[in-house]
């Protein structure tokens, strides 16, 4: 009952296969790409939050990377300057980011469409400027380094493989929680708000409050991802959290499908692979293609939104559903 109503044998199988893949990838199949796999996990978390916001309430956020950044910076500052335990730092960062998101959401969710987009854009850039300019705390344009690893008791997460499992543990947890929320009363409320805000209000749904809650949830996810990123990369700078980073996350959400949770992983995987791997490879053979990621994001964004507005992943999944249904029908009539 409390889950997507379409739960059946297939989805259990799919989840099991996914988990199996998660274990096999860094150990057997793509061991040399563990860094990229870690990044995919991190960006999946950021993207899921955005998908929930954009897909379920129809609100646009062009500044989501800012929350990713606050998580990273707060974790970094607290664990380097103030010698705070990284786990505690991550918690504090998440709470602080959540509060920030809550305060921001109050005035901006009265806006709609373009205006809302612009507000998130503006806020995202302001926060990025603060990252860049408050050098005393953030290390300015050069950022911070020497960020320690996570550790539990004596066990330190200093191996890539260890960090991989830590990141994906968080990521899968975040995905499952998102899944649970979407299949619940809150999820119906969100979908209702997206379908028709007036009708949702008429059945007692406080649209403003829900939008705020989902915005905060997305921000907290991004913050946790940011903390994981900081303790993985060990050094961070403002450029990872600028407008282009927000665009990248939007691209991941668009490719995955704005209202799809597992699609977020697909989108994050695709775009991360393109930006980290494919372009690097191409860049070796054709050095002038250094800025190509920008061109490709642009192209992907346009093509996906024009032709597959539901997102690549969701469209593929729908196509698969239709194909399976047609096969079943044909089987029934013969």
């Amino acid at each position, binding site marked *: 009952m409390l889950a997507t109503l379409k739960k059946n044998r297939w989805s259990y199988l799919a989840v099991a296969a996914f988990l199996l893949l998660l274990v096999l990838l860094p150990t057997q199949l793509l061991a040399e790409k563990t860094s990229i796999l870690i990044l995919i996990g991190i960006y999946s978390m950021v993207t899921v939050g955005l998908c929930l916001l954009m897909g379920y309430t129809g609100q646009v956020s062009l500044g989501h990377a800012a929350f990713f950044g606050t998580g990273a910076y707060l974790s970094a500052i607290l664990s380097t300057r103030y010698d705070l335990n990284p786990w505690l730092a991550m918690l504090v960062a998440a709470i602080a980011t959540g509060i920030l998101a809550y305060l921001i959401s109050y005035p901006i969710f009265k806006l709609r469409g373009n205006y809302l987009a612009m507000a998130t854009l503006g806020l995202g850039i302001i926060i990025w400027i603060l990252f860049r300019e408050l050098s005393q705390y953030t290390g300015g344009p050069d950022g911070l380094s020497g960020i320690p690893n996570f550790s539990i008791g004596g066990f330190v997460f200093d191996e890539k493989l260890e960090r991989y499992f830590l990141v994906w543990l968080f990521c899968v947890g975040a995905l499952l929680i998102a899944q649970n*929320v979407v299949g619940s*009363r809150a999820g119906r409320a969100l979908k209702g708000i997206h379908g028709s805000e007036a*009708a949702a*209000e*008429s059945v007692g749904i406080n649209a403003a409050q829900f939008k705020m809650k989902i915005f905060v949830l997305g921000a907290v996810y991004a913050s946790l991802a940011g903390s994981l990123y900081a303790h993985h990369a060990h050094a961070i700078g403002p450029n990872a959290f600028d407008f282009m980073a927000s665009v990248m996350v939007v691209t991941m959400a668009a490719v995955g499908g704005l209202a799809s949770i597992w699609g977020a992983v697909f989108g994050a995987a695709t775009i991360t692979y393109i930006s980290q791997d494919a372009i690097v490879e191409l860049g070796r053979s054709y050095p002038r293609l250094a800025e190509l990621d920008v061109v490709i994001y642009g192209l992907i964004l346009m093509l996906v939104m024009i032709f597959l507005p539901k997102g690549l992943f969701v469209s593929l999944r729908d196509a698969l559903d239709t194909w399976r249904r047609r096969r079943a029908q044909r089987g029934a009539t013969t």
Partner: protein
Amino acid sequence: MTRSLLETKALTKAFGGLTAVDKVDLSAEVGKITSVIGPNGAGKTTLFNLIAGVYMPSSGDIVFEGKPLGNAPPHKSAALGIARTLQHVLLFDNMTTLENVMTGQHPRSRYGFFEAALRLPKAHREEETISLKARQYLNLVGLGMCAERNPLSLPLGQQKLLTIARALATEPKLLLLDEPGAGLNALEKQSLSELIRRIRDMGISIVLVEHDMDLVMGIAEWVIVLDSGQKIAEGTASQIQKDKRVIAAYLGEEEAVE
């Protein structure tokens, strides 16, 4: 002595220079079907919007169950027990018919993000209840067979029934129906009348805005007539039919059309 469930006192709403609702005193009794009629532009939907909290009154009061509503926003009035259907069918096309009705249970359930996220037993229990009740309401309006279908695949008449089921799921004390008969054929209107009576028999008071006179005269126990924002008459259905002012108001409309 029958009680008033809903009362408006000198309720007024002005949009700039236009007074859509002008010092309307209205009283809807508990357990009765009250109907608000009037020519086009008389202010009926505005009146509903005021009661449901979509608009803020320019002046006057709305009293529900003896307590003033005090500018409660729509989601609050739903929680207090005022449900409504809208003139234009606004269904959630991103979920099934049953899920549409389940959203109606929102104000009668409590579990939130936290319980949902962790799949706590409380969440499961409430979901069971929500789902069960939603099915009951869906069956009540006769759409039990359509539970898994997308609402947009239903014909208009059934879509309207769905909005009624959704409103009923909020377990209201007062149901505001805004032109439920619009776009229905004669047979559908008859089923609608029976449904409305059944809802009243369940203990829910109803206020009905409707253009179809036969429908109104058939079920309304009390009729209030608006014209140009003002109340010009009220009484039983047969009294209203003979009221000269009412006839004049409607004739005026007919003349204008010609």
